């Protein structure tokens, strides 16, 4: 009887059990297809809009690694995101020849280190106290950047976007979009690999009951530090191309509440238990926001630019109350 259950489980695994390499391949093909379609549409607005959506997939996935998997809610998204963005500003000024992917890597490493540091200081705090500490981090980093003249301080910094994309030709936004798509593949593959590894089970144990996790041999502090570093790192990487996207970066835009709200709302709406959730949430909510921004609704009703965030907020409340498992939870089979 036991063996039949084991076999059944294996079969179920088999359906979903794509190897890591194969999965990355599938993601890469999907990303290539998206890029191909965008190239075929050949509308620079489409690239700008799609970039934002893909950026939110990365940001939402990054938040979910800590918030969804281990249950530690981070409100300080903008701190990590802006560290990535402003590290690019610094490199733009000091080493302008540096290729964008290298800048992204540097921004990611910096943000990961900040994540590790804050994690070490704050992870002894549980629940809402941890969240408050991360909120404080965002304020501290914003204050530092606002008073740092080299990166423009409160005035902001201008970054000249090259006219043409390297390697692929066409407008530079196409290159930015391609790089962000690549980052998206990496972050989704990482999230999925975590879920299926001992690390993912350890994260889940921490989320469910930290004392019981310790009693089961899970080194909770170490795992939480890994989660904060990974999560912070991906947020930093998502932010690194931002100066080239906006061409003018000031603290008000780099630390915009929109990033924090969206990065939390999208996984919650999509579902926090698996890598698919932030993907679906970002495409759904991000797509909706971009659609509304582009539609005639704005001019017709003379809407405030913050209208998109309002929709996100309402959606988040609706989902938290009615479908706490998110969109993914609506489709999941009930356990037998």
């Amino acid at each position: 009887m036991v063996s039949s259950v084991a076999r059944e489980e294996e079969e179920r695994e088999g359906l979903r059990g794509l190897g890591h390499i194969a999965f990355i391949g599938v993601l890469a093909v999907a990303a290539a297809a998206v890029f191909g379609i965008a190239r075929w549409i050949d509308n620079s607005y489409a690239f700008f809009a799609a970039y934002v959506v893909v950026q939110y997939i990365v940001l939402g996935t990054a938040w979910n690694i800590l918030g969804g998997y281990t249950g530690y809610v981070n409100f300080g998204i903008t701190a990590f995101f802006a560290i990535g963005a402003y590290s690019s500003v610094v490199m733009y000024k000091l080493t302008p020849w540096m290729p964008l992917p290298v800048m992204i890597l540097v921004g990611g490493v910096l943000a990961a280190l900040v994540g590790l540091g804050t994690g070490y200081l704050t992870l002894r705090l549980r629940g809402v106290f941890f969240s408050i500490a991360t909120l404080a981090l965002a304020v501290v980093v914003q204050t530092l950047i606002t008073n740092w003249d080299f990166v423009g301080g409160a005035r902001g910094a201008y970054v000249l976007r090259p006219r043409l994309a390297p390697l692929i030709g066409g407008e530079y936004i196409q290159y930015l979009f391609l790089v962000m798509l690549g980052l998206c593949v990496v972050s989704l593959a990482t999230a999925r690999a975590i879920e299926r590894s001992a690390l993912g089970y350890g994260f889940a144990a921490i989320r469910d009951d930290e004392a019981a996790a310790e009693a089961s041999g899970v080194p909770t502090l170490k795992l939480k530090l890994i989660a904060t570093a990974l999560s912070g790192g991906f947020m930093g990487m998502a932010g690194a191309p931002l100066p080239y996207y906006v061409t003018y970066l000031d603290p008000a835009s780099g630390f915009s509440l929109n990033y924090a709200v969206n990065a939390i709302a999208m996984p919650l709406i999509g579902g926090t238990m698996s890598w698919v959730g932030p993907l679906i949430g970002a495409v759904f909510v991000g797509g909706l926001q971009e659609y509304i921004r582009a539609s005639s609704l704005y001019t017709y009703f003379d809407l405030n630019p913050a209208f998109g965030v309002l929709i996100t907020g309402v959606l988040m409340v609706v989902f938290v109350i009615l479908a706490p498992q998110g969109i993914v939870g609506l489709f999941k089979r009930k356990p037998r």
Partner: protein
Amino acid sequence: MSALLHVERLSKRFGGFTALQEVDLEVQAGERLGLIGPNGSGKSTLVNCICGTLRNEQGSVRFDGVEMNWLTAHQRTRRGLARSFQLPRPFGSLTLAENLRIPILYTVNARDGQALAGPALLARCLELLAQVGLADKAHRLPRDLTQIEMRKLELARAMAAAPKLLIADEAMAGLSHAEVDEIIALLIRLNGQGVTVIMIEHIMRAVMEFSQRLAVLVAGRKIADGNPKDVVRDPEVVRAYLGE
């Protein structure tokens, strides 16, 4: 001869309240020890100090020849000290099989030797669940279980860590007569495989049937320790339980 577990002059205070006062306790390898005491006598606090969930202010805990005072709870579990919680604390978002997967991944697989993976890992989880009679619910979530089944899951999760010493903290509260017998048989079978077991219990029938030795805690002090039949006749123990 050195004991497997050696607790020496262990004290624990919560503010002004002394929960444990200079408790000494030795457990030999392969022994079955019963630990009893009225409610609030410090049994669970003692377990928490031994397992590292709480830090003791004074005294020392030595396990398998190693001083445990500076080790975290998960380090102690890896060294072979597992416990079940008095109030079941299952991992609520994971299935029963996955609940057992955690200690296997983080203790058994973290030790030297062969690491379980894939079908072998699942088979081990199912085998453990079968031992406590939960095999048919392997893919259900803990919220589908009754309180009694949760206690069994709690015990199975402690067993999954393949401990040298298992501390069962009131694993049988609320169980029926037949189920108590089942758990006693399970723990004795486990003991037969070489696992030392400390049983904390209020059900005296279970304690007497199970224990080779009995220790009694009252108000944070150990007042008796010895042969179960003698201990329950000890005037001080009788007084603690029944009053003057």
